[in-house]
C-alpha cells in the first residue's frame, strides 16, 4: 500500500510530463487498434464467407466467363443441392468514387444466402419486376435508397446506361454479414445483352453452388472440375472462403505493410515512454541513493520504477482502448469503404499486451541503473 502511494506520487510529480506521456501512449494504443481493425476489415469478406458453398469459375481467370449451359451439368453432380448464377456488373453509380459491388443473380441465389434477410413481400415484388434491384441495408443507409427509388447505373464491363428500381432492402443476419452491395436479375442483364451484344449473352461469371455436406466440399469441387476438363471453358471450383481469400491475397503486400506499420507505432511510443522513465530516474538519482542509505534494497527501487512505468502505461492504455469503439464508429462512417469495422476482442487483448510490453521495456534500463547506483555517487549527483 505504501509502495503504491509512493509510485503514484512519483508518477504525478511532473504532472505535465506524465500527462503528455499518457496522451502519447493513448494515441499509439488507439492507432495500433485501428490498424489491426483495418487488417481485419480486409478479411471481412472471407470471414463472412461460408465453407458450405462452392464457387465455380473459369480456370483461366475471373475475366473469363462460363456458358450458362454449365448450370444443369453442375446440378447433376452428386452432392450439389443448388446452383445459382452470379455476374460481377462493375457499374458506376453517379461517380466512380461511389463504388459498391453489383451482382446480376438468378433468384435461387437468395436461397443460398440465408444470412441476407429479406421480407417475403419485398422478395415477391422484386421477382415480379424485371428491372427490380435489391440493396443491402448498409448501402441503403449510405446513399439513402428507399423501396421504389430509381437507380441508374452506368456500365463499364457491360456498356450503356442501365435502369433499376429498388424493390427490396435486405438486412444482415448478424453484424459480420456484408450488406453493402446490390443485386439484380441475371435475366435482365442477359436479355439486354442479347439485343445489344449477342455474342456476350448466355455467359455467367461464376456459379455459386450449394452442397449437402460441408465435409464433402473438396470431393464435390474435384468432381465438378472433372466434368469440364478439356472443354472450351475449364472450371476451377473452390469453397467460397478460399475464393474470397484469393482476393485478399492479391493485396497481401499492402496488408503486410499495414502490419509492419502498426508495430512501428509501438516502437515510437516505446521511445517516448523510455525517455520519460529515463529522465525521471536520472533526476531522482540522489533520492534513490537516500532510500538505499535508509536501508531499502535494489529490489524496492526496481519495484518503484516498474510500478511508475506500469501506472502510466495502464492509464494511457486504458484511455486508448476506451477511445477505440467511438473512433471506429466515426472512422467507418467517414471512410465508407469498410462494410465491417469493429474492434474485436482479440485486438483489445493485443492493445493491452502492447501497453504492458511498453511499460516493462521502458523501465528496464532505469531500474538497472537505480539498483546499481552507489550511495556515495548517488548522493553526490545533481540532476
Amino acid at each position: 500500500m505504501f509502495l503504491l502511494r509512493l509510485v503514484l506520487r512519483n508518477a504525478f510529480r511532473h504532472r505535465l510530463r506524465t500527462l503528455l506521456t499518457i496522451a502519447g501512449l493513448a494515441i499509439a494504443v488507439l492507432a495500433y487498434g485501428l490498424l489491426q481493425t483495418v487488417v481485419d476489415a480486409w478479411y471481412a469478406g472471407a470471414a463472412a464467407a461460408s465453407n458450405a458453398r462452392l464457387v465455380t469459375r473459369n480456370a483461366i481467370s475471373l475475366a473469363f466467363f462460363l456458358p450458362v449451359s454449365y448450370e444443369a451439368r453442375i446440378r447433376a453432380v452428386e452432392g450439389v443441392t443448388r446452383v445459382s448464377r452470379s455476374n460481377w456488373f462493375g457499374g458506376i453509380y453517379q461517380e466512380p468514387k461511389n463504388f459498391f459491388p453489383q451482382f446480376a443473380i438468378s433468384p435461387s441465389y437468395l436461397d443460398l444466402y440465408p444470412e441476407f434477410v429479406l421480407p417475403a413481400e419485398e422478395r415477391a415484388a422484386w421477382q415480379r419486376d424485371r428491372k427490380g434491384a435489391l440493396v443491402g441495408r448498409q448501402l441503403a443507409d449510405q446513399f439513402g435508397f428507399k423501396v421504389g427509388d430509381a437507380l441508374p447505373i452506368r456500365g463499364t464491363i457491360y456498356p450503356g446506361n442501365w435502369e433499376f428500381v429498388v424493390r427490396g432492402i435486405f438486412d444482415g443476419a448478424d453484424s459480420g454479414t456484408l450488406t453493402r452491395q446490390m443485386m439484380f436479375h441475371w435475366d435482365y442483364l442477359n436479355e439486354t445483352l442479347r439485343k445489344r451484344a449477342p455474342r456476350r449473352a448466355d455467359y455467367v461469371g461464376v456459379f455459386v453452388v450449394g452442397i449437402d455436406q460441408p465435409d464433402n466440399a473438396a470431393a464435390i469441387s474435384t468432381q465438378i472440375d472433372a466434368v469440364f476438363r478439356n472443354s472450351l471453358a475449364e472450371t476451377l471450383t473452390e469453397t467460397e472462403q478460399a475464393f474470397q481469400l484469393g482476393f485478399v491475397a492479391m493485396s497481401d503486400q499492402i496488408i503486410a505493410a499495414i502490419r509492419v506499420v502498426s508495430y512501428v507505432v509501438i516502437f515510437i511510443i516505446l521511445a517516448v515512454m523510455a525517455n520519460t522513465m529515463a529522465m525521471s530516474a536520472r533526476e531522482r538519482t540522489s533520492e534513490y541513493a537516500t532510500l538505499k542509505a535508509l536501508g531499502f534494497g535494489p529490489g524496492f527501487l526496481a519495484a518503484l520504477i516498474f510500478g511508475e512505468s506500469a501506472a502510466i502505461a495502464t492509464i494511457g492504455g486504458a484511455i486508448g482502448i476506451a477511445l477505440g469503439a467511438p473512433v471506429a464508429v466515426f472512422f467507418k462512417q467517414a471512410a465508407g469503404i469498410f462494410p465491417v469495422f469493429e474492434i474485436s476482442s482479440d485486438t483489445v487483448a493485443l492493445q493491452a499486451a502492447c501497453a504492458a510490453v511498453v511499460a516493462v521495456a521502458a523501465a528496464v534500463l532505469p531500474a538497472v541503473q537505480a539498483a546499481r547506483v552507489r550511495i556515495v555517487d548517488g548522493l553526490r549527483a545533481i540532476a
Partner: protein
Amino acid sequence: MAIPLSYVARNLWTRRLTTALTAGGLALVVFVFATVLMLDAGLRQTLVATGEYDNVVAIRKGAGTEIQSGITRPQAAIIETHPVVATGEGGRPLASKETVVLIALRKAGAAKPTNVVIRGVSQAGFVLRPQVKLVQGRRFAPGSTEIVVGGAIARGFEGVRVGERLRFAQRDWTIVGVFGAGSSGFDSEIWGDADQLMQAFRRVAYSSVIVKLRDVDDFERLRADVDADPRLTNEVKRERTFYSDQSRALSTFITVLGLTLTAVFSIGAMLGAMITMYASVSNRVAEIGTLRALGFRRGAVLGAFLVESLLLGLAGGVCGLAVASLMQFASFSTTNFQTFADLSFKFLLTPAIVAQTLAFSLAMGLLGGFLPALRAARLEIVDSLRSA
C-alpha cells in the same frame, strides 16, 4: 545577440540517451512518411515510364481499362489507317492491335494465384515500346504459341523460366525469352502473338489499338476524328494519360492511408519532443537565468531552445531518411484495383521527397519545442537565479 550554436548542440550531446530516444521516435515517423512518399513516387514513375508521350491508346468508350475494352477488327483498321499515324518500314502503319487478358499465376511461395496481364501484340508492338528490351532468349515467333515474360514476372512467379511451358486456354505456351521493360508496367506482363492469343481465348475483338503519332501535336486531330466517326464507338487517350488514369485509385489509396498514419504517429513523436524539451528547460532554469543576467534577451533564449528542438528534429529526420533510402533496394507488388492485375514497382527517392521529409521533421521539432521554448523565454531573471 544570439546564443552560440555550440551551446545548443552541446546541450543535446550532454543528455545523449534522452536525445537518442526522442530522435529515434521522430526517426520512425519520418521513416513511415518517407516510405509512403517513395512508394507513391515509384508508382508514378512506373506509369510515366509505361506510356510514351507520342503513343495513343484506343479503347471502347467508357471502358477505362484494356481488360474491359473491345475493338472490332473494322474499327481497328479505321484507326490504324488514319493519316496522323506514323508509318514504319515498308509503309506499314506503326500500330499494334492488341488483345489483353488476365491469367492466374502463382507467385513464388504464395498459396493463392495472382492475376497477371497477358498481352497479345502485333509486330509493331516492340517498336512502339522502345523501353521493352530482350534480356534473355529471343522474341516469340509470329504466329506461334510462344511467349516472352517481363522481368518482374520472371523474378516473382513460379514456373516461368525460359524453356518452361505455361498451360492456359487449352494450349501449352512455351516461354522463349525474358524482356526487361525498365521500371514500366510492362515489366509485370507476359507478351505473345495477338492473333494466336485471340484464337486461343476465342475472342473476335481486340482489346486496344496502340498507334504512334507522326507528330506529337496531331493528337487532337485524331481525337476529333474518332469522336466524330459514327462507325467508331471508341475513345483515344495519350498512352501516358491512359496509364496514369488507370492507377489513380491505387495511388490515392497509398497516399491517403500513408499520410493519415503519419499524421497520427507524428502526434506521438511530437509529444516525445515536447517532453524532452520541457525537461531540458526545467533542468536549466538557473542557466537560463544566468544567460539573461549576462544580457541575452528573451528572444535569444526563445531562439536557442527552438534551435535545439529543430536540431533534434533534424537528427530524427536524417536518421529516418537514411533508413528509408535503403528501401530503394526493395520492390513492392500488389493488385491494382482498377485493372485487377498485378503491378510491381519500386520505392523511389527523389530530391523533392528528401526536401519534404526534412521539412516535415523540422516542423515536428518546431511544433514540439515551441511551448517549452516559450516557457524558457518567459522565466524571470531573479526567480530563475534563485531556484539554483
